[in-house]
């Protein structure tokens, strides 16, 4: 199809109606923001790139252009700090892309006979639709801006503990004594927490995002989520002040949205990342020198651990235990150390299933870990 510039813009805005309707139905600001972002990027590409480079756009071009726009949208979403869950963000993009194809190839040509020869222009209906989409988006974004959670900027060192009881963003600074979150839709980023029992303690809340937080010298857990849905990205937990510290602990959160721990670096704790009765995606983390286990997926959890690196764990690198169901793939476990002579389950086992657990294991790299990959006590490892 040879689009005119106006045709590209009208077609894009017209085809955005289903995605926009879904975003409105979701009743989440991030959804509106994401659709606005997709459209803004698309319009910039239409104006600056596509119109010039594609005088004729064959049908197959929808695939590479769709992949390009997905990548750009994802990057822009991260850069803009839009807290959309990955699954929903992909679903929303998928709906937008699919409806774009459906509209361009079936709906618009059906509704407007001249659609193709008019270069994608939709006529009066197109102007009205484009205006309606623009008004909805501007209105939605305006409303989102007006009711957005307040941002609290921390400067210098603040004496805690800080208790968060409303939806807000907490950013920057150093907090002594920990942060307690008792509200949903909270975002904490670029904060350093020093001391306290728990670095950041999230209880009975969901849609909590912890991004680029650093926790040092805590005595129990670096980050604890209890009955909560959290997204933890790019955290750093180190220098524990006692022998019982877990880096990230997510427990009893099965009734909450799935949690994610990704890109974190955890060093010297008792356990690096531990889950109990939760659904957690543990991916791309670096866990070093733990004294009991590197990563624990336990107590009837349904977890995935992928792309993690566990180094120098005493006893066990990654364990799936206690009736849990786990997928453990593409991890690297190196130098798991033997912990005493008595207990074979702690003989430097790189990946372990223990006590009625089921672990699906694939594409992992195990280096210098004498216990290898093993199942104990009525557990099952499948490859």
């Amino acid at each position, binding site marked *: 199809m040879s689009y005119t510039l106006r045709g590209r813009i009208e077609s894009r805005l017209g085809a955005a109606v289903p995605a926009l309707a879904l975003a409105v139905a979701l009743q989440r600001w991030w959804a509106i923001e994401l659709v606005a972002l997709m459209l803004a990027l698309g319009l910039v590409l239409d104006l600056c790139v596509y119109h010039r480079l594609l005088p004729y756009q064959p049908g197959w071009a929808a695939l590479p252009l769709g992949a390009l726009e997905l990548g750009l949208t994802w990057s822009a979403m991260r850069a803009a700090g839009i807290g959309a869950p990955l699954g929903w963000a992909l679903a929303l993009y998928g709906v937008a892309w699919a409806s774009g194809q459906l509209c361009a190839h079936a709906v618009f040509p059906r509704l407007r*006979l001249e659609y*193709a020869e008019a270069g994608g222009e939709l006529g009066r209906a197109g102007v009205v639709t484009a205006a309606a989409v623009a008004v909805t988006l501007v209105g939605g974004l305006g409303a989102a801006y007006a009711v957005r959670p307040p941002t609290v900027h921390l400067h210098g060192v603040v004496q805690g503990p800080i208790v968060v009881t409303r939806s807000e963003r907490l950013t920057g600074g150093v907090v002594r004594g920990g942060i307690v979150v008792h509200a949903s839709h909270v975002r904490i980023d670029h904060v350093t927490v020093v001391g306290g029992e728990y670095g950041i303690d999230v209880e009975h809340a969901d849609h909590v995002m912890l991004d680029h937080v650093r926790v040092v010298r805590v005595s129990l857990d670096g980050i604890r989520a209890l009955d909560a849905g959290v997204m933890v990205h790019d955290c750093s937990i180190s220098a524990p002040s006692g022998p019982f510290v877990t880096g990230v602990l997510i427990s009893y959160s099965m009734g909450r949205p799935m949690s994610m721990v990704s890109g974190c670096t955890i060093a010297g704790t008792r356990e690096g990342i531990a889950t109990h009765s939760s659904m957690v995606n543990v991916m791309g983390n670096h866990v070093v020198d733990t004294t009991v286990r590197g990563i624990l997926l336990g107590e009837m959890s349904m977890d995935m651990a992928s792309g993690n690196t566990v180094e120098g764990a005493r006893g066990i690198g990654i364990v799936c235990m206690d009736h849990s169901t786990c997928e453990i793939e593409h991890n690297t476990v190196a130098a798991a150390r033997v912990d005493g002579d008595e207990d074979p389950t702690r003989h430097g086992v790189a990946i372990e299933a223990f006590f009625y657990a089921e672990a699906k294991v694939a594409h992992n790299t195990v280096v210098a870990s004498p216990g290898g990959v093993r199942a104990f006590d009525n557990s099952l490892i499948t490859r």
Partner: protein
Amino acid sequence: MCPAERCAIVGSGLAALAAFATLRHGGVQAEEIVVFGTQADPTEPFRARARAIRQRRMRSESDGHLAAPAWPGLALRDGRPGALLQTIASRYHPPVDLFLRHAEEVRRRSGWDRSFVERRVERVAAAGDGFEVDGDGLFRHVLVATGHPGHALPEQLAGDPRVVHAYEPHEYASRVAIVGAGMAAATEWLNALAAGAEVVSIRRREPVRRPLNVPRPLFSKRGLAAFHASSPERRAALLRELSTPSYPPGREWDEPLVHAEAEGRFRVEAAPNGAEQIVCATGFVQGYRNDPLLARLQAEHGLAARDRWIVLAPDSTVPELTDDRRTLALAGVAAQWAFPAADTVAGAKYAARAFLRHVCRTR
């Protein structure tokens, strides 16, 4: 829905059927449309030509059908998953049989037969708020789609008993000269080779390889805007250039020729020499002057013309005879001044849609 008003379509080929189906889709009742033509079956002229050159695939793509909306296209009707994949890559060319079956369905569903009147129209003349068609009544809106005026044959071959036009029924002798370098000629090369003949291609220039009759941008507003904005001289020059023979690129065309060339069964020469049979794949005579109806229309109303084309507005209407009350439009090859690919299905639908806009607006 359009309020009722009498319309006439002069001509009864594919362009006429496209126009009729479009009017019906736009809400014009079949009883309000009169189709004047010489054959009740609008597919017959095309069917005969396709049969003569043994054409199996259309040059057009999935949306090259005669129903008013482009969707669903023929690839979807084809039913093969491969057809849909091919259409994504702009490589789907529907089978001629499928195209004709669908055209038959369009004819039946649109009520064509109720509107058809068998008559060769000699004269269309402006009268009052409309037009008289051979003195028959007053039609506010008339679309002339009379098609190609006749087969073209090179003068130097006139009277040669070996000559047959590609679009006339024929078999192949053992040594065949094929004159021309367009789609029909290329099809005939392959046909004659498949029949075991030795083929000599007679052509003045190397054929242009183009997927469709004209470059793709010229099928839509983006390319047409520049075309419509160009000067009459430039436009006529471009149309002449676009009318040079072409056929699509692709292995299915090239490989049989390469093999035959290697076997000494295919070559290019300047003259037929000792060929037993000469197939003239030289298309049609060109220009409105060869169409008695159009020539008379132009002369009687003093319509502007340039080279071999009647000058049309971008929407295929005749500017001197179209206003808020009435419409005279051309479709098919005679409408190239408005749409360079007017002699294709896409061109027929371009004119038809524009005609519908006038019909509905001026009612």
